[in-house]
């Protein structure tokens, strides 16, 4: 079983469009994992029918029992996250600010603080309209622990892959370089960096590569909107050559990307002629590396 992770650093470079099109061409061989748990969009193309839905619990938040609290103020004093406020003479936890460290619980002299485990989202197992099994999730608004939720989605995807005897797992990742991205890279076999030839795209590519290289993974890159700025594109190609990153494909700045999203389709469902060929080549290049 091989796990391929698609990330980009910068948002909006086309991760999900690329993931959908890659998945379409190998629909009988792979499992999808949407690890952009914070603002997932892959389901809009794949239309998963969930066959299982689970609450996901992780981390704690402090709760003060105002009846037992003596308003000594120790919790407010020691909280490093300013998450304890005094309202109408009694102490309360501001849940969105609470980091879930439980220090106040340990320090409260009258045991007025409890630390219940939090329901931070939902995880789903699904079959998509293309018959591809898919693991996905939804993180609650403002929740932390997104890294752990990503790890759970990846574990679910591996389970699906072994049950259904699929050789590949394709992971649609989050933007950025923080905890969900770090979590999506852990245990992967190959990382695809999707970038665009803009100053921002290049800067973000450099940072996300600097993160990915620490995982010692084989790495390939897709330059989307490649004809938008040839000068920056050439700089990206130099960067790739310098770092030993395989250039998997250059995709044109093309309205098909928007049209495919609007129609809820993979690129080749909208326009088979060019995109089947392009993504077939991407798979060939990638599988050679694996």
């Amino acid at each position, binding site marked *: 079983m091989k796990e391929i992770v698609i990330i980009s650093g910068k948002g909006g470079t086309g991760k999900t469009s690329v993931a959908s099109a890659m998945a379409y061409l190998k629909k009988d061989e792979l499992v999808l994992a949407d690890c952009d748990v914070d*603002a997932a969009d892959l389901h809009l193309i794949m239309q998963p029918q969930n066959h299982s839905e689970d609450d996901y619990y992780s981390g704690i938040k402090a709760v003060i029992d105002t009846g037992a609290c003596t308003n000594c103020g120790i919790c407010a004093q020691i909280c490093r996250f300013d998450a304890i406020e005094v309202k109408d003479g009694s102490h309360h936890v501001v849940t969105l600010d609470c980091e879930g460290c439980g220090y106040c619980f340990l320090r409260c002299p009258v045991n007025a603080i409890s630390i219940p485990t939090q329901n931070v989202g939902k995880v789903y197992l699904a079959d998509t309209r293309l018959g591809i099994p898919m693991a996905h999730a939804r993180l609650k608004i403002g929740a932390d622990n997104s890294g752990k939720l990503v790890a759970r989605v990846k574990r679910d995807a591996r389970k699906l892959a072994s049950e259904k005897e699929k050789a590949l797992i394709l992971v649609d990742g989050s933007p950025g370089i923080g905890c969900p991205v770090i979590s999506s890279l852990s245990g992967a076999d190959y990382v695809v960096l999707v970038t665009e030839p803009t100053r921002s795209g290049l800067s973000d590519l450099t940072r996300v590569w600097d993160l990915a290289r620490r995982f010692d993974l084989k790495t390939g890159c897709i330059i989307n909107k490649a004809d938008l700025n040839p000068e920056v594109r050439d700089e990206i190609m130099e960067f790739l050559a310098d770092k030993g990153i395989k250039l998997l494909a250059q995709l044109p700045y093309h309205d098909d990307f928007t049209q495919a999203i*609007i129609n809820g389709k993979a690129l080749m469902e909208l326009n088979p002629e060019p995109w089947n060929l392009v993504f077939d080549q991407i798979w060939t290049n990638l599988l050679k590396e694996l």
Partner: protein
Amino acid sequence: MIWKAAITSVTTKAMRLAIASGKGGTGKTTLAVNLASFLAQENETLLVDLDVEEPNSGIFIQGQPTLDQDVARKVPQWEQSLCTLCGKCPTWCKFNALLRLGDTILVLPELCHSCYACSELCPTSALPMQDMPLGAFRGIKAGKLSFLESRLEIGVEQASPLIDKTLRYVDEHHKAVDYQILDCPPGTSCSMVSATKTAEFAILVTEPTPFGLHDLTLAVETLRILKIPFAVVLNRSGDHDHDVEDYCARESIPLWAKIPDQRRIAHLYSQGKLLYEAVPEVLAALRAIKTKLEALS
């Protein structure tokens, strides 16, 4: 005139405006840099890049460097000579950042949330807090525009502590401006909440695609929980605007401006250039937004 300026600077506080979105790549940075630069033609304006994982506003801002400063966070360091191996600290840590391996206490700094529990509870003070790299600040000044970039150290998992520190820095050093424009991270999780929660008003930037609309609804839900008033700016506007327009109308969300979908705009952006001097539609959008902002304060 001078007196008016002096009085304004002491009596009014800066208007803090968050530029956010659910989806990445919708044009937050484009709007933030152009709006800040446009406002700074007349008003003291601070632009803060809080997309600390991938900060890009700085690409568009030229000026005099004013600041270059490392930012640290505190994590415990194990002092073997003071430790009695009582074994309690690993049970206190909710983030599994402390492990006891035989007669060694192992600190895993990347898991630590800097809550100080272990350090302050340790009966022999064997876990003093030490500085660990978190990121860096970079400042630029160009006329009435001040710019503060906050950049996360690569490999650090949590962005929120740096965002919180950046906003504290802004409170201490940049009070005397008319506008504070915050370029926020995408999404709806902890880092987006940290970046937006102190704002007086937010602009959500979206695009007229099902992805843009879906993630807009998530961002709207977030700002409603945070009780921050907001408006929408529609970027890459064209033939498919109706879904976003209908949604905004249904939800009574003001749609403040549209930025057209033009390859020319994408190309200027790709070069790291500001748009409003070259693209009249962008200038008109910024003027409209400024008028709305003035009406708020």
